């Protein structure tokens, strides 16, 4: 067993730390405070990060990317998220789908889509599953109801598929140039046997971006509505097989879990740093707050949870690099949800007890952290993971 990082891993970590400190952190709070959700986004930081390789970090070297391993991805994500969780997630959203392209696209598709993605600093990736009636439907037992779940229709017409319907809450929705889209190709069977996935460029005729959702946390991150009105997608953009869109997704889905957990470590780090700074610089009764027992108890707990999460994340990253399939990738994500909430709430407690105002950045960590519960840690996800464990 060995926890040492190799030279390449340390180099990426250092590069990410520098970029996060020098470029992301200075703009983070200002972006968070912009009222209109469409305007919180900033192309400059994306371009700068892209030039440093963060956007294309997981694309294989032979395709012009950097091919960093999962451990490195985790290290980079922790550093970026420490400065701003939502900006970090915008980059890792591209990683997620880079993994998927590598896993499930055919060579022709890769040739058509990967080089432009690599070449263009503003080329972001996204994916669309959720719909107004709840793409998250059918997640609960007891029945696999054909009427539930995805409604967006895709019907074949010659060499094209005609798409009609809406997607909501789609990550990178208003800024991505390419989407992985889940559609319903057989409405008379349960979801697991009637779904098909397409590659949909943002300039697809009949496609447009609707509303950008206004979230309380992760405000930089663009979740948008995607509208398809007789949108025409070439048959060549079909991913995998018809009606098999929800089958195994390869390492992409592994990373799906891991990026969030790693991001949470970064947010927890930021919370610990803020708490420690307060403890060292604020005085009460003539002594630094850090000397108070209640500070010690809270701060110690923050660090403890942060390090437990980090350890688990690293273990899972190693498993992913070994292409091991285990329940840990899912468990660590659920765990990250608990830890990020507990740690940011404690940071808030510490600031409060010392009389510091809400709104000095710690509340952003709390708001960002609350995204986890809605994205990765709700009961349905927990039950799904446990179901596999109890087989």
């Amino acid at each position, binding site marked *: 067993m060995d926890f040492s990082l190799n030279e390449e891993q340390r180099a990426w970590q250092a590069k990410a730390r520098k970029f996060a400190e020098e470029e992301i952190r200075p703009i983070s709070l200002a972006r968070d405070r912009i009222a209109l959700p469409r305007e919180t986004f900033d192309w400059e930081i994306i371009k700068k990060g892209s030039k440093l390789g963060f956007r294309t970090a997981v694309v294989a070297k032979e395709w012009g990317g950097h091919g960093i391993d999962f451990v490195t991805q985790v290290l980079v994500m922790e550093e970026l998220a420490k400065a701003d969780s939502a900006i970090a997630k915008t980059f890792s959203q591209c990683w997620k789908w880079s993994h998927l392209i590598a896993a499930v696209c055919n060579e022709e598709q890769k040739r058509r889509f990967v080089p432009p993605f690599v070449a263009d600093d503003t080329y972001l990736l996204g994916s669309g599953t959720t719909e107004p009636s709840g793409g998250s439907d059918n997640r609960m037992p007891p029945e696999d109801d054909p009427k539930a779940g995805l409604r967006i229709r895709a019907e074949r017409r010659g060499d094209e598929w005609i798409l009609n319907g809406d997607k909501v809450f789609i990550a990178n929705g208003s800024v991505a140039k390419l989407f992985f889209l889940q559609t319903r190709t057989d409405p008379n069977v349960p979801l697991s046997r009637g779904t098909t996935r397409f590659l949909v460029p943002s300039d697809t005729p009949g496609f447009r971006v609707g509303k950008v959702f*206004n*979230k309380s*946390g992760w405000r930089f991150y663009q979740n948008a509505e995607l509208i398809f009105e007789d949108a025409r997608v070439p048959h060549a953009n079909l991913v995998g097989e018809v009606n098999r869109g929800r089958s195994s997704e390869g390492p992409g889905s592994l990373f799906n879990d891991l990026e969030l957990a790693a991001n949470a470590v970064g947010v927890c780090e930021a919370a610990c740093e803020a708490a420690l700074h307060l403890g060292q610089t604020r005085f009460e009764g003539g002594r630094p707050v850090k000397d108070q027992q209640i500070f010690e108890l809270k701060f110690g707990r923050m660090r403890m949870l942060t390090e437990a999460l980090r350890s688990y994340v690293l273990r899972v990253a190693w498993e992913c690099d070994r292409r091991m399939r285990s329940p840990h990738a899912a468990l660590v994500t659920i765990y990250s949800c608990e830890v990020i909430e507990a740690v940011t709430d404690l940071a808030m407690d510490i600031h409060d007890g010392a009389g510091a105002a809400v709104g000095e950045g710690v509340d952003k960590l709390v708001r960002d952290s609350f995204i986890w519960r809605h994205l990765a840690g*709700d009961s349905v996800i927990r039950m799904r993971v446990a179901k596999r464990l109890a087989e």
Partner: protein
Amino acid sequence: MVDLHLSAEQLEFRDGVRDFVAQELKPFAVSPQHLEAAERRLPMEILDKASDLGLRTLALSEELGGAGASNLTFCILAEELAAGDADVATVLTETARLGQLLFDRLMTPAQRDRFLPQFLSDPRFHLAAAQSESEAALGLGINYHRPLPAEVPLRTTARRSGGEWVINGEKKAVANAPVAKLFAVWAQTPEGASAFLVPREASGLSLSARAGNSHLGACGDLVFADCRVPAANLLGLEGSAPHLCAAEKAGRGNPLRQAIALGIGRAAYEAALDYARLRVQGGRRIIEHQAIGTKLADVLVRLEVARAAIWQAAWASDHAEAFADRSLADLPLATIAEVYTGPAIYAAAKDAAECFGAMGVMKDMPLQKYVHDALLSLHSGGGNGEAKLRLAEALAGYVR
């Protein structure tokens, strides 16, 4: 003899407020344009109507023209208002609380004659108290319950100049400051900390509202630059300010802030319950799923338990004699309600929001606001940590 029946009057008043909330306040509070606004806006027209219902003068005695509500009634109604909108509840509650304190307890008859008619007749006459200077280092507990070396003087000062007091200094984050027409201001004089009545229009007083949504209600900073008020505006005796509010024993006050928190939690719970009874997943209403049903059960338990504790503390603050006759344990019940309520309601709001999936974090939906309001409530005042330290002091038998 223990009796938990509400009086006919209380039930009627509560019904009236519930109607008002359902008809007027809630539709405003959950409108997407209000929810999405970068800054909280107070609906002044709705506040006017609340004033007409007697909510602004709720605690003022009947002799002086108010509703003379007990602390318990006050808490019951504060919860109802907060279930509609926490900001409106916070503003009204602060004015009503100070109305009773200032007019019934602290003012001289002459002062009352000068200010009461305006207070009663103007529905937009709100009150504020500029008391603490937030960074005052309490150091609760850090000195092991031994007194700090010396009383820290207020940095805001008042000096006598002829028939006037001249006030200088600033007070940050004063609740109700943006809407108040009369301020009670604590300032240092040669005799010690003293309190003054300062009308909004006093020369040398300037005010800036605090924008954003980092507070419940309305909040602002006050600057006093040679602010002049007549000598007759001194509240009580010079140097007596520390004792003005200390009428009730520590931890035995009215748990109004907790009642507001409870209202916030209830709004979140009711929204989640309605949704869970409608939304279908896997062919069943989600409330029938164990995962959602037990989550909502947890939320409900927190609310009901908090209410039991709050009502007990509120009633106790109306009936100090119940401590003496040993019907109630000799404990700071309001502080106990505070320690429980803040974290419980915050957790409840988060759990309720979770039932909504992604909608739980959308600004144009009310759930994120309930979570945020619960967070603000948890961290308002000295915060939960401070409340716990106050309770710990009481357990150690230490009296400040």
